[in-house]
């Protein structure tokens, strides 16, 4: 073994003492930083993954639409899309804002018309249903999100009235179109706010009727075969589509949200990295003190045939060892915490007596967490580099030591 490494290890873990206070404290400091970063990043990854899954589960992987206008030749476009080898399923949809009224209470949700038979091949509607069931769904019924239902006090079985902007237009020509009465057959919750807050679902022809679209739709949502990358698929498909018809992957449709999620993760990293920086500063200061304390020893090592450079290397290696040990312990403890995260949370929640509260606002019964090797790699590299840098200042102090003077030092 190289003697610099040997001495570095001995200085961190001296023979005859079980541990050295300095090294244990330094390693714990780094481990804490790494652990917190690792856990927080994994949980954020988990939430992100969950959000992505929910988006795909509620929206499909890609959509083709006419620049938000009405698409009248949906059938031929549908046939064209069906012939693409990457497409697994497709469903037409149309939507509009309408007024829903029940017991004199009214709301203005987005009314989404779905091509039910095909839609269920793309979106697992059944999974999101909270009350009622889908068997009775027809063009005289409506599915509300739980939130909408509670806003107007409707339940499964209630009859709600729906008014569309068409009715206002008709008034101008002194016509009167009566509101459509629809029966609530089910309520749903996806866990994805945008969908849960404001969307009611009806049959496609109901919407076409309400908004005077005739055979027109607003777009076609697609489910792709496994292993097809939506972004690439949309890009390739667009080469064969003419304006205004445009294909968009779910990533493109939700790019603002995805950007926010990504920024959030990066910012979190930058904030938490300060834990590591603080740990590094304390390593630097205690190592500097130990250099001063060991001045005579460094002179001695020099007399025994070591160069000053090698003594510097010895201190840098100490930083490296602390970095590596701290990272390994941090990741290990972090992984343990993640493994038992739900137990930890439930104990915490019980201790604080906020069980009901938590369950109401977060579905913390299963907190998501996934770790990516890339993240771990970045994190560990970062920690190790910071710790090595922490050794630089003490090493520079050593460079100034003159062996003869060091030996006179008492």
């Amino acid at each position, binding site marked *: 073994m190289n003697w610099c490494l040997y001495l570095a290890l001995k200085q961190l873990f001296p023979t005859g003492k079980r541990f050295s206070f300095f090294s244990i404290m330094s390693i714990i400091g780094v481990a804490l930083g790494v652990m917190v970063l690792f856990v927080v990043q994994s949980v954020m990854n988990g939430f992100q993954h969950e959000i992505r899954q929910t988006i795909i589960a509620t929206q499909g992987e890609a959509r083709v639409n006419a620049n938000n206008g009405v698409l009248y030749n949906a059938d031929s476009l549908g046939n064209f899309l069906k012939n693409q080898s990457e497409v697994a399923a497709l469903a037409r949809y149309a939507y509009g804002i309408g007024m829903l009224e029940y017991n004199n209470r009214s709301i203005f949700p987005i009314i989404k018309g779905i091509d039910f038979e095909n839609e269920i091949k793309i979106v697992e509607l059944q999974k999101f249903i909270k009350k009622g069931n889908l068997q009775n769904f027809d063009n005289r019924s409506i599915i509300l999100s739980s939130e909408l239902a509670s806003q107007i006090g409707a339940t499964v079985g209630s009859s709600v009235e729906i008014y569309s902007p068409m009715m206002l237009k008709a008034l101008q020509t002194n016509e009167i179109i009566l509101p459509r009465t629809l029966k609530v057959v089910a309520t749903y919750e996806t866990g994805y706010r945008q969908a849960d807050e404001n969307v009611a679902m009806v049959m496609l022809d109901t919407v076409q009727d309400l908004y005077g679209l005739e055979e027109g739709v607003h777009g076609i949502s697609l489910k792709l075969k496994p292993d097809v990358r939506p972004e690439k698929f949309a890009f390739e498909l667009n080469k064969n589509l003419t304006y205004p018809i445009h294909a968009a992957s779910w990533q493109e449709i939700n790019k603002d949200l995805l950007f926010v999620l990504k920024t959030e993760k990066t910012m979190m990293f930058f904030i938490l990295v300060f834990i590591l920086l603080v740990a590094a500063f304390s390593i630097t200061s205690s190592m500097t003190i130990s250099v001063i304390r060991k001045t*005579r020893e460094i002179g*001695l090592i020099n007399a025994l045939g070591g160069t000053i450079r090698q003594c510097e290397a010895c201190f840098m290696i100490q930083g490296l060892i602390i970095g590596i040990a701290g990272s390994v312990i941090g990741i290990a403890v972090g992984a343990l915490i993640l493994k038992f995260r739900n137990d930890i949370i439930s104990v915490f929640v019980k201790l604080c007596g906020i069980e009901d509260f938590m369950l109401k606002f977060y579905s913390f019964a299963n907190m998501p967490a996934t770790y990516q090797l890339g993240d771990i790699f970045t994190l560990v590299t970062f920690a190790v580099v910071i710790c090595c840098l922490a050794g630089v200042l003490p090493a520079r102090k050593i460079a100034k030591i003159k062996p*003869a003077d060091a030996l006179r030092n008492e």
Partner: protein
Amino acid sequence: MNDYIVELKNIQKKFENVFVLKDVNFGIRDRETVSICGTSGAGKTTLINIMGLLEFPTHGNIFWEDQNVIICNAKRLSQMRAKIFGYIFQRCNLIPELNVIENILFPKRITSKISMPDLELAKELLQRVRLGGFENRNVWTLSGGESQRVAVVRAMINRPRIVIADEPTGSLDEKSAHITMDMIINLCREYDSSLLLITHNQLFAKKMQTSYILNNSELKPFDYAKSEQ
């Protein structure tokens, strides 16, 4: 031509414009034993630090077997320190993080790898300084005399050509000083090393073949036999 293995020629050393050494010429022969005495602050430590390649003179040259070492780079110098010299200082000779045997073998670790014979030698030397069984003791549990004897063993482990001892018994009581000193002299004789000793103790100085006195920045031969008459 003399037969010095290390020779200092016209050495001058100044600290902040004050001469500590003024034109010193000095050398040591193979297997020779030399003592240097002088008042405190005379520059004895400075002189042997220069000889031991731990410090550079302000002026003058150092020759190792007729090669001028002043022009050597730091790496070469440290190799020479490890191979040629064995150092024993007055105190704090040992590295506290290492135990006795690790301290002894440390110079070996710096120059090469540790092999079985080295371990055997270390154990044998420990036996010789009456520290058999102390191999795994922690250094902070040793008495002053014991630490010095460990330092003696460490100085011998690379079989140095020259052992440099700067008041090795300065912090010991008289009895253990005598014991330690005899061990140093015997081991040097046995392992064919020259010995350069700084001491205030006349009894020890008398045991050396050659004696010098450092006075007023100058080094002069000193004959104890004559001075007693």
